């Protein structure tokens, strides 16, 4: 017998790692998740500061489905992981809005809200929008095609208004596109269903609720997890399986390795070359405002506001530190949750330039912090045309940048949506080593969980 200690090693205790890990553990595989950080979650994690609890990543869970629904990604995850709907403690969004100059589209978890908004704002394009909805509904997104098909080209062929197209793209790109200024058609369909057909919800305790549920389920089924455990190399063995080498020199053998580290990151662990184009261009800054009032009391009642100050929305890496011309404003308070959160909170996200933030931070921590402060002032200025003024109500502010994301997740350039070149099969050219998570091609928390489940099923269980 070769000295294979585990049936499977999973690199990264994020959503996809837990999804894969739970599946393997529940079918009695000896499985260990290795996480470099001291806490789990990866790109959807949490931290504590100044006595406050903050989430990273998750603004809202997409793919909402009501209790008892049988079809769709969320019910599939519940069945595959043997979890109950109640376990997630989900509360639906109130209403969200896409704000462009002179136009706004409202949407909720009921598609009719969006349809009537399109009818009001783009009456001459309503039929075209409904055609798009039908096309999306009929598209089978179950299998990931290998070829990139431009969603923008397809939309231009259906909808005659470039403004409406950009407004539809805005939330879908912001919540998951690794590709600049376009999306793969299949990914567009997945996101359109996830955001507009199914919609947003949030557990009362945010991402912590989901992560503690996943972690407990995984551990209860016999899965092992090691935090503060950095992998520095994956070495496939001629006889099958792979050796995983840790930072402290320890070597662990496994029949299969499932890496949630990302495509270029995993190639790097394997000593394989990768192209610069495999590193995602999109990363973000986020500012969290803690308020002395609830957002609703300040007349900010939308759950999530996606905005662009220009009629043509530019979804591409920022030239400067931050691109203030568009953004996302989310309030965790504005969900239909009977138990109010302790404090009012707004989370503001903008597209950023990771290279500039990283350079600044490596040159001078002081200058980096100054720039973060300067950013907050500019952000508040930019919000004036989006929501009522709230700067007098700010009690506490925290910000994170692509440099922060890279430091804690090891994602090169803090590319939260990963590589633009998704690998649907999870196979990256090394025997017994597979990738899962965002670079396998599924998006968001629900997508990542599904990715982990699918990769565990396909490569280690069936």
């Amino acid at each position, binding site marked *: 017998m070769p000295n294979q200690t585990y049936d499977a090693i999973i690199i990264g205790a994020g959503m996809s790692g837990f999804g894969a890990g739970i599946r393997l553990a529940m079918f*009695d595989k000896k499985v260990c998740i290795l996480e470099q950080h001291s806490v789990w979650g990866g790109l959807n994690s949490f931290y504590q500061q100044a006595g406050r609890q903050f989430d990273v990543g998750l603004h809202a869970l997409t793919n909402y489905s009501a209790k008892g629904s*049988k079809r769709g990604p969320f019910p599939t995850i519940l069945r595959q992981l*043997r979890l109950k709907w109640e376990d997630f403690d989900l509360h639906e969004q109130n209403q969200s809005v896409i704000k462009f100059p002179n136009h706004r589209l409202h949407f909720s978890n009921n598609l009719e809200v969006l349809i009537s908004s399109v009818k009001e704002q783009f009456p001459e394009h309503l039929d075209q929008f409904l055609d798009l909805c039908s096309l999306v509904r009929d598209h089978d997104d179950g299998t990931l095609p290998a070829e990139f098909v431009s969603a923008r080209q397809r939309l231009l062929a259906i909808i005659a208004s470039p403004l409406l197209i950009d407004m539809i793209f805005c939330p879908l790109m912001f919540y998951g596109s690794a590709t600049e200024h376009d999306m793969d058609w299949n990914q567009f369909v997945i996101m359109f269903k996830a955001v507009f057909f199914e919609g947003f919800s949030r557990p009362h305790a945010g991402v912590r609720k989901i992560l503690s549920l996943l972690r407990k389920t995984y551990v209860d089924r016999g899965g092992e997890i090691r935090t503060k455990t950095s992998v520095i190399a994956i070495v496939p063995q001629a006889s099958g399986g792979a050796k995983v080498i840790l930072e402290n020199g320890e070597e662990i053998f496994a029949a299969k390795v499932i890496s949630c580290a990302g495509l270029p990151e995993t190639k790097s662990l394997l000593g394989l070359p990768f192209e610069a184009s495999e590193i995602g261009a999109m990363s973000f800054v986020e500012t969290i405002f803690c308020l002395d009032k609830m957002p609703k009391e300040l007349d900010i009642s939308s759950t999530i506001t996606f905005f662009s100050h220009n009629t043509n929305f530019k979804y591409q890496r920022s030239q400067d530190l931050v691109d203030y011309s568009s953004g996302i404003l989310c309030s965790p308070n504005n969900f239909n949750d009977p138990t109010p959160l302790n404090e009012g909170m707004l989370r503001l996200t903008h597209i950023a330039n990771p290279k500039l933030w990283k350079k600044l931070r490596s040159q001078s921590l002081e200058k980096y912090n100054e720039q973060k402060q300067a950013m907050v002032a500019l952000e508040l200025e930019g919000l004036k045309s989006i929501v009522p003024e709230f700067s007098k109500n700010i009690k506490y502010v925290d910000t994170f940048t692509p440099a922060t994301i890279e430091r804690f997740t090891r994602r090169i350039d803090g590319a939260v949506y990963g590589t633009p070149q998704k690998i649907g099969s999870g196979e990256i050219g090394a025997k017994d080593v597979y990738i899962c998570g965002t670079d396998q091609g599924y998006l968001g928390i629900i997508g990542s969980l599904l990715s982990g489940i699918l990769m565990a099923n396909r490569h280690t269980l069936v």
Partner: protein
Amino acid sequence: MNKELIRQEVKDIIAAIVPDEDLSVMTNSGIIREEVNLDSMDFLDIIMELRKRHKVEVPEEDYKFFATLDSCADYLAPKMTHLTH
């Protein structure tokens, strides 16, 4: 009786996979996937649960025997003698 035990075990497994489905509609000779809402991932879970609970290996070419509870019982009986004796 022996095959009845196997049919019951398959039903128990299906109940664990899709707890919200009404399994009282299942008949011994009815097509399982017509009587119960099971997608392909759920279906594979039946095979995996059998392996986990009873160490029964079902190669992919034999999935066709899982059409009805009766055909499951016929196929599984020689593989699950611990249940049938």
